[in-house]
């Protein structure tokens, strides 16, 4: 009987050597005449254990990791004998505390099977939400999403149901509405969209189908950042297979309804993650931010009513539809309902994806899940919510992961990226980088953003060189105020947040 093994094809797993381990395994098994079946699954998101191999035995999965090619020989021997004697044996996968202590809804299926296998997807509950949506009319679907309390996971946390209602109610002159998935995932410290697309792409497709049924849109686009070549290939193949199986195309599951889906690549511009810039980019233009109104929900892609949602928002809709709004909104705190996919990154011992109901604290995540820094030195600063998010010092680490709680301390949860820095960080460097990044990535429409960020870099350089330091520190604050007040979007408008947080909480770093 053949032994089934699972080794991820995920970007991070491969970046850590999964392909080399896979080749070594297959070669060693052939040499021993061992009959193994190697499934290339997605990752479970426990990146510090990658490459992590799983073995299926008596319907239970057992994990080994992190593996190198040197571990392979002994591993094959253990497979025939006693798994637990291998030094890299981690026990049953589901019992690994990092995984066991999560509340996985969106990522429940991630890493279980071959991401492209439709049978696996349906066996694990996939398309249940779609089947239910096909029995409902658009308004009923929108109502369900509204009562789930689901808010956009791309950063701005706008209620998804309200956005959908606007698109449902909007009239399209051309009779065409669109669903656009924002898969630009530009924030440093975030990888949940990528992980989902590489591990469970049909969930995104299902979410987009449901959105299409809800608002009456028959075409969808996934705008994917070009930095994700692996996700691109997987999505293309998934779309093709879903078409062949009748989930996409002219007659979704025999319902007579249509939905066509295409994946498009960005071209290395952070600003194209901003929804209106993204739409211009999809139309084939420079990715310039549009003034709102009109809202994309009313005049979006090619001027037509358009839903723009993040990957995780669309994915969460499948849970809402499959399990019901009540089930979903039972998780969470306050106005933050459901689960947050925390991405623990930077200088961290156990980095990875941690899906939790809203409400856990930053400290719990970093200490209990993350196990402190990779370097073993004390944590000094934590940046939450990407490059436009504040750097938080120790006094704020007990803040619960909740949109309102973070807003109250002038920080943001954003897309859920948490980047940990140890005590060797120079916060003046980080403030300078925030300005530099804004200068590189500004779309150029607003002067405070385009020019202010360049000035910001210069002023910080003067502060550091001790040229009229006190005056330049005042100037830097002024500049932050001007950028915040005079920018059209959050690129220029929120770059001041990481800068001010560095000034407020880590003032010493500007006095060296």
């Amino acid at each position, binding site marked *: 009987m053949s032994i089934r093994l699972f080794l991820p094809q995920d970007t991070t797993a491969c*970046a850590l050597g999964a392909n080399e381990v896979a080749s070594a395994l297959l070669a060693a098994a052939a040499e021993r005449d061992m009959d193994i079946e190697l499934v290339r699954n997605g990752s479970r998101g426990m990146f510090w254990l990658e490459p992590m191999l799983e073995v299926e035995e008596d319907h239970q999965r057992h994990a080994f990791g992190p593996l190198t090619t040197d571990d392979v020989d002994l591993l094959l021997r253990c497979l025939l004998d006693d798994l637990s004697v291998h030094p890299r044996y981690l026990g049953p996968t589901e019992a690994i505390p990092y995984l066991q202590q999560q509340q996985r809804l969106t990522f429940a299926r991630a890493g279980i099977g071959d991401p492209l296998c439709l049978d696996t997807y349906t066996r694990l509950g996939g398309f249940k939400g779609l089947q239910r949506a096909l029995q409902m009319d658009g308004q009923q679907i929108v109502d369900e999403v509204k009562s789930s309390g689901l808010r956009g996971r791309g950063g701005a946390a706008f209620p998804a149901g309200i956005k959908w209602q606007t698109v449902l109610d909007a009239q399209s002159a051309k009779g065409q509405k669109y669903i656009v998935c924002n898969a630009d995932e530009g924030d440093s410290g975030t990888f949940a969209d990528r992980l989902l697309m590489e591990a469970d792409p049909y969930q995104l497709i299902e979410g987009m189908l449901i959105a299409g049924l809800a608002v009456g849109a028959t075409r969808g686009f996934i705008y994917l950042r*070009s930095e994700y070549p692996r996700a691109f290939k997987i999505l293309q193949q998934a779309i093709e297979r879903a078409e062949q199986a009748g989930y996409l195309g002219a007659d979704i599951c025999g319902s007579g309804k249509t939905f066509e889906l295409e994946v498009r690549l960005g071209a290395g511009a952070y600003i194209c993650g901003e929804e209106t810039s993204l739409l211009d980019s999809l139309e084939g233009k420079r990715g310039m931010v549009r003034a709102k109104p009109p809202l994309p929900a009313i005049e979006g892609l090619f001027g037509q009513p358009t839903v723009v949602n993040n990957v995780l928002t669309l994915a969460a809709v499948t849970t809402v539809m499959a399990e019901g709004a009540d089930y979903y909104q039972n998780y969470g705190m306050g106005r933050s309902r459901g689960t947050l996919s925390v991405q623990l990154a930077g200088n961290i011992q156990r980095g990875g994806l941690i899906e939790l109901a809203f409400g856990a604290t930053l400290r719990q995540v970093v200490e209990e899940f993350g196990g402190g820094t990779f370097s073993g030195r004390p944590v000094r600063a934590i940046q939450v919510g990407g490059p436009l998010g504040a750097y938080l010092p120790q006094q704020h680490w007990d803040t619960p992961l909740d949109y309102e709680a973070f807003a109250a301390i002038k920080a943001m949860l954003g897309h859920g990226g948490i*980047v940990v820095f140890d005590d060797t960080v120079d916060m003046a460097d980080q403030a300078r980088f925030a300005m530099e990044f804004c200068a590189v990535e500004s779309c150029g429409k607003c002067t405070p953003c385009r020019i202010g960020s360049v000035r910001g870099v210069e002023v910080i350089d003067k502060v550091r060189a001790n040229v009229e330091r006190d005056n330049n520190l005042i100037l830097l604050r002024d500049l932050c105020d001007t950028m915040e007040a005079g920018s059209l979007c959050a690129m220029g408008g929120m770059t001041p947040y990481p800068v001010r947080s560095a000034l407020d909480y880590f003032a010493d770093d500007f006095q060296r």
Partner: protein
Amino acid sequence: MALSATQTATIASLIEAEAHRQGPLLPILHAVQQALGYIPADAVPTIAKALNLSRAEVHGVISFYHEFRTEPGGQTTVQVCRAEACQARGSRALEAHAKQALGLEYGETSADGSVTLEAVYCLGNCACGPSLRIADEVYARVDAGRFDQLLSRITGRGDAV
């Protein structure tokens, strides 16, 4: 530099293959860059004409996106992640080392045409930085030693090891 006959034919067939899409410009530019390694200035009028755009519009789009290049790059593109999560793991030292080892600044190509060095802002490998991308492969936890080892593979030079 004028386009060769093969280049002209390639561009024409790529335009034809993509033109049916809604908003075909980015897909066309990606396809041309993939096939030729860059987007030659002389391709602009052809693309503009096919899509009924002005040359200025097409040029404006090419120049807006970091990824599109108008000069041939090296055989292999090496991208160093400069974003925060990688900074927290030492990417500033990695980038200094990469520039020094290659004798290149970001955006430059080595004299022998083998390598182009680029900056990138996040590769989605933020839990295991510093991250490096070579062609379509991402590498995790890259320090100076690992960089030299990977580099020697692409340049075929043993001296970097």
